């Protein structure tokens, strides 16, 4: 039993709790604690990556109870990837926030740690109800972080975000109830086993429950028509929070993969997930289209980025709904790229906004801008990568997605929407960039504050990561393919989690 595996959950929990006990700590100590814990998270995420590379499934039986009776954590390659992505992202967010954004409200770092606990828990858990609990943890933390800093826009966006997600949680409980009522179990592997052998009469009910889950995860992942809370919430949040939220939609995506491809995908003959995937495909495409339109129509860089998040969600879900191993791997690569880049843009919007005399990141406002050359160059490079122009990760990931989708039926829809959305992003970003960095009006710079080196460096490093992702694409791709391959072996998952329990029947245990 390898205790390191629970670290991604326990470390942030301890840090957060400790920060509450030491509620009088000055901001400096809070920062160093928070950064330290996030660094630890990175370390353990790397360990997890290696561990998952060695053994397909690593289990951790909480309370030492045999699954499916106790809660079990499952670590496989997919989980490890998400853990690492989260850890790195949060590290950059904490660093950026530690330059001052964390002072705008109370307990930023404690809340952020709890948020991380929730996210990591959602990635690790192998139990559906436990997933619900961790969803709630990460949601309540995200509510608090969204409101961090106060202000009217945040209150309004926050209220909407909270109410919508509460409705979502109610739905989640409904679906859970139905599943438990019909299968009598909560462990994902056990659910998969029971569903695969469910009586014919119950199948429609189970599928209906899975459709409810689609809506629940669709709200998290921002799938049309469940995404309208997102643009304002993300553009209202303070920069580091918005950047961290870039991973939140991916949690929804991850949950979909786990639940629909594993729990409902076991029975190779007639998997219970076709109905969900059938619904997902068109909805995802429309999401993608709406995202592209929103990118074009956005009034500020933050809103634009929020819609780029939606575009990425559209691509991810459309790709998953094709239910193909190769495509899943490709989509994971795109997930890494898009998460990194959208985060970069949320931070960049803030960074640039700080050096414009007025208008912050609004496009309509013409205002003097200092440090034009450095900021302009950073923006250019980021934009090139975001528009998935070569030689950055965006290009590689899109090429991979398009390639691996081409053998499938009606791939042209995917191609068209991906390429056109790319064009829209190019158009929008070139307008934004030329409008900001190429305006004579902005030559007149008043007494310019010195450029914040740490903030800029953070952004640059993130861009560099996206670039190296393209440079060392092959090893990454190999890992992702292995991960996707595991996802498409639900029986292996069930075997690994339930072990000998599968053979022995329930009565024995009673």
């Amino acid at each position: 039993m390898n205790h390191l595996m629970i670290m991604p959950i326990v470390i942030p929990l301890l840090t957060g709790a400790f920060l509450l006990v030491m509620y009088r700590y000055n901001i400096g100590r809070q920062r160093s604690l928070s950064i330290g814990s996030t660094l630890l998270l990175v370390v353990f995420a790397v360990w997890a990556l290696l561990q998952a590379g060695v053994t397909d499934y690593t289990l951790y039986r909480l309370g030492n109870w045999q699954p499916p009776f106790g809660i079990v954590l499952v670590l496989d390659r997919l989980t490890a990837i998400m853990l690492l992505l989260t850890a790195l992202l949060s590290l950059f967010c904490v660093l950026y926030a530690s330059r001052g954004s964390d002072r705008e409200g109370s307990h930023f770092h404690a809340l952020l740690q709890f948020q991380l606990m929730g996210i990591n828990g959602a990635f690790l858990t192998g139990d559906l109800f436990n997933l619900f609990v961790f969803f709630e943890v990460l949601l309540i933390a995200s509510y608090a972080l969204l409101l961090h800093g106060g202000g009217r826009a945040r209150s309004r966006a926050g209220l909407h975000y909270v109410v919508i997600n509460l409705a979502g949680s109610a739905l989640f409980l409904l679906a859970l109830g139905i599943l438990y009522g019909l299968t009598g179990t909560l462990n994902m592997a056990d659910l998969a086993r029971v569903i695969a052998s469910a009586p014919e009469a119950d199948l429609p009910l189970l599928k209906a429950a899975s459709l409810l889950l689609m809506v629940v995860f669709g709200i998290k992942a921002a799938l049309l028509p469940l995404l309208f809370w997102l643009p304002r919430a993300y553009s209202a949040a303070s920069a580091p929070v918005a950047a961290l939220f870039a991973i939140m939609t991916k949690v929804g995506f991850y949950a979909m993969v786990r639940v629909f491809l594993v729990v409902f995908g076991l029975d190779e003959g007639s998997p219970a997930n076709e109905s969900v995937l059938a619904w997902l495909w068109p909805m995802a495409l429309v999401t993608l289209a709406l995202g592209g339109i929103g990118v074009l129509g956005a009034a500020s860089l933050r809103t634009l980025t929020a819609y780029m998040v939606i575009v990425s969600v559209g691509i991810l879900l459309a790709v998953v709904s094709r239910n193909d191993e190769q495509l899943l791997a490709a989509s994971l690569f795109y997930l890494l790229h898009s998460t990194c880049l959208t985060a970069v843009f949320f931070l960049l919007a803030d960074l640039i906004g700080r050096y414009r005399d007025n208008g912050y990141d609004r496009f309509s406002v013409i205002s003097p801008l200092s440090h034009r050359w450095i900021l302009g160059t950073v923006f250019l490079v980021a934009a090139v990568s975001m528009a998935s122009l070569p030689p950055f990760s965006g290009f590689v990931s899109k090429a991979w997605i398009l390639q691996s989708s081409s053998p499938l039926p009606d791939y042209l829809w995917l191609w068209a929407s991906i390429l056109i959305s790319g064009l829209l992003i190019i158009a929008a970003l070139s307008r934004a960039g030329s409008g900001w960095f190429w305006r004579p009006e902005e030559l007149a710079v008043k007494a310019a504050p010195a450029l914040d080196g740490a903030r800029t460096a953070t952004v640059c490093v993130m861009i560099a990561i996206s670039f190296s992702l393209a440079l060392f694409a092959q090893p990454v791709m190999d890992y992702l393919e292995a991960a996707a391959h595991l996802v498409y072996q639900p029986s292996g998952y069930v075997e690994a989690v339930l072990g000998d329990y599968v053979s022995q029947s329930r009565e024995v245990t009673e």
Partner: protein
Amino acid sequence: MDIGLLVFLPVLGAIASLLSRLNRPGPDHVQRHALTALIAPAICLLLLLSYLPRIQSGEALVYSISWVPEIGLGVAFRLDGLSWLFATLITGIGCLIILYARYYFAGKDSAGRFFVLIQLFMTAMLGIVLSENLLFMLVFWELTSLVSFLLIGFTWSSRNARRGARMSLVITGGGGLALLGGILLLGQIVGSYQISDVLAATDAIVRDDRYPLTLSLILLGAFTKSAQAPFHLWLPHAMAAPTPVSAYLHSATMVKAGLFLMARLHPAMGDTELWFSLITITGMVTLMVGAFVAMFMHDIKGLLAYSTISHLGLITLLIGMGSEMAMAAALFHLTVHALFKAPLFMMAGIVDQATGSRDMRNINGLWRTMPALMLITAIPAAAMAGLPLMSGYLSKKMLFSESLLVTAPHWANTLIPAWVTVAGLFSVAYSVRIFHNVFFNGAPVDLPHWPPRKKPAGMLVPLCILAAASLMMGLAPQATYDGVVHLAVMATSMTHLPLYDFSALSEARVPAMMSMTAMVGGVVFYLARGPLFAIHRQLPEVDAKNIFEQIMQQCIRFAQSLVYRLENGSLQRYLAFILVAAIAPALWMLGGYTGWQGPSALTEVNPMVVFGAVILCLSAIGVALFHHQRLPALLLLSVTGLFVTLAFAQFSAPDLALTQLSVEVMAVVIMMLALSFLPQTSPRESGAGRIVRDLGLAGLAGTGVALFAFAVLTRPAETISGYFLANSVSGGGGTNVVNVILVDFRGFDTLGEITVLGIAAVAVFAFTRDLHLKERVAHAGTAKGFAEPHPVILQMVSRMALPIALLVSAFIFLRGHNMPGGGFIAGLVTAVALTLQYMAGGLVWAQERMLTHFRPLIGAGLLIATATGLGSWVVGYPFLTSAFSHMDWPLIGEFELATALLFDLGVYTTVVGATLLILANLGKLMTVAGPGQEVG
């Protein structure tokens, strides 16, 4: 790998330039910048020349290392005749452009930036022509678009520059995406992106049913890049760039990339009806449009831009014809054009700088002041016009003779010759015009600088070299063709074809007559220009840039309006969407489902349950009905909560009943407090339609839940719970199975649950911190409720009640593991008791007497719980493994002292802390204690 060096040398050069610019910026170093910038291209040129012998031996040098084999993306270079020709043009003209720029940018601050970008561009361009891997080529393809964007926007203070740059980026970038699609399809068909493999797979490609799509996408990329109609519109507006840029990117090199691609893929994809019609027609249209519009341009650069377009169209047309000879003509003319168009642009730049204008209506008779320039320009101008002995003459004649050979589709054989003759006529006309207008045609008309400024003689050197080259091609066509062009032609047509016979060409009659007609007609046309211009002036002025901008604006406005209409900030609408999204699929799934009632028989109705259910329903409906009257609604809601509690009690869930009860109390208290700040009534604002819609949604949702519940309840249960009942005592050390599950079997859930509670409390603390409610309290007018804030009796009672309450909660806590109860309920009871103190004594009073603050309490609780879990590591068990031992306590009796109890202590602490923190901060809001002052 030294071909790779060829490509990446200019990058090093660019870096060098950048550094030299950084350490010594400013106008006075142009000389040094230029020399720095010249090194890399010069080396490249020499390298290329050194390769010539091996190329002439007909071999294609290919080097490749894999980069991302997964997607077939490799770092691969190919140097054969075709790429050699292009690479040489790129580096050669590049060097001359840098020479020219050294004078053009003299005294300009931006010189350094130019030299950096131009070398980057050179890399991109060399990358395109030298790539062996098509995906890899795409990398450079997009890079050219990008650098061109930056160079067009070079003088970014001008609005035209910005718009022109954006326009070109969007058009060529879009083309690039189409090309990506096309190349990926091609790769799927062939199974590889290596050009060698692609060229070897002609049949497979042409036969594949994806061929039309593939070809169209690839051509879309090529046409946008090479400014073929109707995508040519970006090119004239690219003229906002400095003249060296126009001369290099927008006439000599970048716009030829599309042609290169077509020539490159011709052996693999050419020789089909589709290829012929798509490319030929586009070429013809472009040729004519360009030539015609050029005629009427007054701006020198504008005229040159459109003539470039028409020449690109001409080459495209030839490529479309596809025969080996046509290819020969195409590449020959491509070279010729590069050699005569670049110097003409340079001339334009010199005139522009000297006179301060580019308008041919003002610029006249410069031969007096700039004789040398006149003499040199005469050659390229004549070449462009296609006068005898000039290279242009030959290439035109080649075109004419090829056009006669086209017979394939019936429409082509007469149309094309006539068409090209007319176009030739125009080209003669505008060539004559640019030369005659600028250097003769009377005296200049109010030029900004007159007499023109002197330009250094050195500025003419690059012109001379280019003019000489062009002249040589005219005089010794055979030699140049055999030496250079022929190799390229062979590369485009995989077959070993004979050399092009220029002597035969000079004998050919019909082409000669055609070009005679073109020349005479052109001169006549030019002489008759007066009335023609008059007519043209009548035609409406169309500015493609504005049209493009307007289209963009339209799209953006559409996007905005659509987004506004959908994402309109109405929570009610969003929730409705979500409900529909939840109901519709379920409805679709279970539309005709009949198996709702399961096998197990219905149990008989229990009147007490029915009574409870009725009250429950009525109270709930009451809440919905009277929600406008908020206080009554709230009271009804608490009735609902009470009966939910009873339901739990009735159906053998004592723990739930207790929890629900205590939670209910807390929740109602909180809502009461909140209500005291809010209006007491909700206005009736929903219209009938809205209400009907909502009732419909509500009804559907309710029915759905009811059906699901019924379906499950009527099915036999087969669950994992037997295990819990069996192992609760032996494994969990408690007889209250629910509690054992909470603190042991599923303790992890509970840990998460109390974390949620803790975070909620901290969040409330955080965002109520600087909330101003004073005016609110006043206006809500409910302060009366607190007129006499701290009633004495309440104080007495509450203080007496406190110890008892604490004792009770201790009891509940301790017995929790075996009997209904547990940390959570105990915590809530304690919290209620303490809350009473607050109510009675008042915030300040209570705050003073509180032993600790609440946030550390929450933290401590979480720490205790987590630590308990970690404790099991010591004995080598996983997180949250429980251990217990029996012992006998006075009063409470025999019970197990389980680690789970410690865990439950954590729960208790967190609950107390969290609940009090929420209430205290809510209470803070109504005290006069101003914002900013922290409570808890």
